[in-house]
């Protein structure tokens, strides 16, 4: 038994309370706890890499009575990468919010959200996952509501109402699972669940709730305005990290609780939704005039790629979905941070306004471009690795149509990404000398883009973690 899983939750939580108590000067506390949290997750990942799944019994009780924290390879990978992205993104918040109440509220909410995220990643208990999901939902809503306009509040409200509706479905599914097998432990429930109506219905409810929370097609229309109207650091956190929470839960329980249901009809329905999300949301992204809306829709399409792991179902596909999750986390955080910086410089995030600002801030635009290449799934970014794994998995499992969907999605992504990138080459009236992006945000977005590149250039370590629980690791 290792203490590290609990530490990944305790440290950001203590940091959140400390920053809350310190008040205005919370930035130092934030930096310290961010460094400590990332450090702990790295140590944990190394331990998982060396020794396999790490277990912690909270309170010493153990399943089924108590709650167990179990960190397998995928969870460790997500802990590290999402942790790094979270830490980097929040650094840009310092540039975004002037010192004051909004900044300290952001910091506290961000640390709580991080604690919730880590709790979600390490937890092996169905109900604890629900509580962690709700924690993430509420902090996400808080982060969105810090936005500048009335639209932010409207978006936050909409986000909250849809998210709790999604949790409702999940919770009902959990009730069924508990009723059927008298345990809330994900793996134990998986052992006790037989193939049948109850398990299929429970999966359908859980999947419906979680896909609603993720904004999977066709119930996606509520999400883009949340991303587009949140403050940029919050948008980066949401689309990069927190928006993946529901998927991560589904990923975990499809692997451990519902492996039997995967070849049944509900999984194929999820697949159709995912495919439609990839194509339709990409097409919608193509039509947007605002950069943030475009990225928001593209995030929805990327969510679709992740959900493809469920119908394809092979270890390779699951690794691919996981890889989409981590590389998109870095890429979309990079893009949102860069967009926020450019928006600062130009006053709005309209695509038409890009030419001037892109030429004044080439490095910021450069990170935007790398993020864009990641969205297209082209090398040398992590997006390519993910796409490769998914396409190969689809072909190997004989379900070649999913490969076609993935490739078509990549084509449309290229269309909307280059619609943005080409603006950098349009000669424009030079902007006034003040139109520079905040330097901190520039550095942060470059670092995030570097993470995405690193994932694309050196995927073997992350992949060995991603495939560890599936018996292909060292």
């Amino acid at each position, binding site marked *: *038994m290792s*203490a590290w899983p*609990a530490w990944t939750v*305790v440290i950001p*939580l*203590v940091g959140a*309370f400390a920053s*809350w*108590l310190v*008040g205005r000067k919370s930035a130092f506390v934030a930096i310290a706890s961010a460094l400590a949290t990332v450090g702990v997750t790295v140590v944990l990942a190394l331990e998982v890499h060396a020794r396999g799944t790490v277990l*912690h*019994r*909270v*309170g*010493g*009780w153990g399943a*089924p*009575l*108590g*709650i167990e924290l179990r960190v397998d390879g995928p969870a460790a990978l997500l802990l590290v990468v999402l942790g790094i992205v979270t830490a980097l993104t929040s650094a840009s918040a310092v540039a975004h919010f002037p010192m004051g*109440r*909004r900044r300290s*509220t952001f910091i*506290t*909410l961000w640390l*709580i959200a991080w*604690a*919730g995220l880590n*709790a979600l990643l390490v937890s092996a208990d169905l*109900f*604890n996952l629900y*509580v*962690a999901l*709700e*924690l993430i939902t*509420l*902090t996400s*809503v*808080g982060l969105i*509501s*810090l936005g500048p306009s009335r639209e932010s509040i409207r978006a936050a409200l909409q986000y909250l109402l849809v998210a709790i509706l999604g949790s409702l479905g999940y919770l*009902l599914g959990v009730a*069924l699972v*508990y*009723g*059927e097998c*008298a*345990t809330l432990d994900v793996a134990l429930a998986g052992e006790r669940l037989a193939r*049948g*109506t*109850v398990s299929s*219905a*429970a999966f359908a409810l859980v999947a419906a709730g979680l896909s609603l929370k993720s904004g999977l097609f066709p119930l996606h229309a509520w999400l883009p305005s949340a991303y587009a109207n949140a403050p940029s650091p919050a948008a980066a956190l949401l689309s990069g990290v927190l928006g993946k929470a529901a998927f991560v839960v589904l990923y975990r329980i499809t692997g451990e609780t519902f492996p039997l249901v995967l070849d049944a009809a509900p999984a194929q329905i999820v697949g159709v939704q995912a495919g439609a999300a990839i194509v339709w949301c990409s097409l919608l992204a193509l039509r947007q005039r605002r950069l943030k809306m475009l990225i928001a829709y593209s995030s929805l399409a990327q969510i679709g790629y992740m959900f493809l792991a469920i119908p394809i179902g092979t270890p390779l596909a699951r690794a691919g979905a996981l890889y989409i999750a981590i590389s998109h986390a870095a890429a979309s955080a990079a893009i949102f941070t860069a967009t926020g910086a450019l928006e600062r410089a130009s006053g709005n995030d309209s695509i038409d306004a890009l030419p001037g600002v892109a030429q004044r801030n080439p490095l910021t635009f450069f990170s935007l471009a790398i993020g864009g290449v990641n969205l297209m799934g082209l090398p040398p970014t992590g997006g390519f690795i993910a796409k490769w794994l998914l396409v190969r998995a689809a072909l190997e499992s004989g379900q070649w149509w999913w490969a076609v969907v993935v490739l078509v999605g990549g084509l449309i992504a290229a269309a909307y990404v280059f619609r943005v990138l080409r603006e950098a080459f349009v000669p424009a009236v030079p902007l006034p000398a003040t139109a520079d992006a905040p330097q901190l945000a520039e550095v942060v977005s470059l670092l995030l883009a570097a993470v995405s590149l690193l994932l694309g250039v050196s995927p073997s370590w992350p992949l060995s973690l991603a495939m560890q629980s599936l018996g292909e690791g060292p």
Partner: protein
Amino acid sequence: MTFDWLLDATVAAALPLVAWTVARSVALSRAIVLFIAFGLLSALAWTRLGAIDVALVEASVGAGLSGALVMSALSWANLDEATVARRSVIARAFVAAAIALCLGAVLLGVPDPSEGLLGDVSANLGDAGVHQPITAVLMSYRGYDTLFELVVLISAALTIGAAKSARLEARPGSDLLRALADALLPLCIVLSAYFLWRGSNAPGGAFQGGAVLAGGVLVSTLAERLRRPRLTVWWIRAALVLGPASFLLVGMPRFVEGAPFLEYGPQSASRAIFAIELGSLVTIALVLASFFPGVGPLETAPDASSERTRGHR
């Protein structure tokens, strides 16, 4: 026996009916009143099902607090917007019926009888440090959940407080209210302490106690018997996070020594749990009170309206 059955059947049938009426009410005020009625009805259902704790919390927090919150929405909600789509009633009824049938069929398909985790819970009560099974689950077996639940409460309060809290539109401030508050606050404190103490071996605990205390704080603040605490004061902020902080503080020493997180040790378990419940009670009371606009402790700037009412008085 038949009476029991009849009562159960009535309650069970009434619940979906009330739910339907809430959704179908044209006037928002009517929907809200029915919503509170639904809460009380479900509290009744839960007592029937032997879930006294749940019924208590539902009556105080669920129906009571939520009901009051929603009720306060009447004062500012734009009632003109309250529209109910009339045309699709049949379609909706049909869809709802279909879903209800499927859900019901699945729910009734679970094994019966089933002991659940009853046996495990009872067998480990000795080590848990409390005699009341639900308190044992909440504070010991699944104390980790409770920790997060408190954090959820706090983050909601934080977001609500992040916007500058607006003043309450109609402030009563009458002598009657002040007299009531003077009598109520001590009563609430005593009552919540009682709930807390009782929690270790009978229904009751931090939540029920916290809800009661929140009510007292609420009335007193409304009556301006209690100063509005400010977030700029550090101990107010500390009090708000006392619940989860006490979880961490109590759990930390043994955790650092190498024991599992939130393992209190067999000897000190009951004391540890009591300390945590005490902290949680403070957090819950403060946070719940803060949910009410213009009342809670999350005022950062002196409010112009309080000066005005004071002058008026």
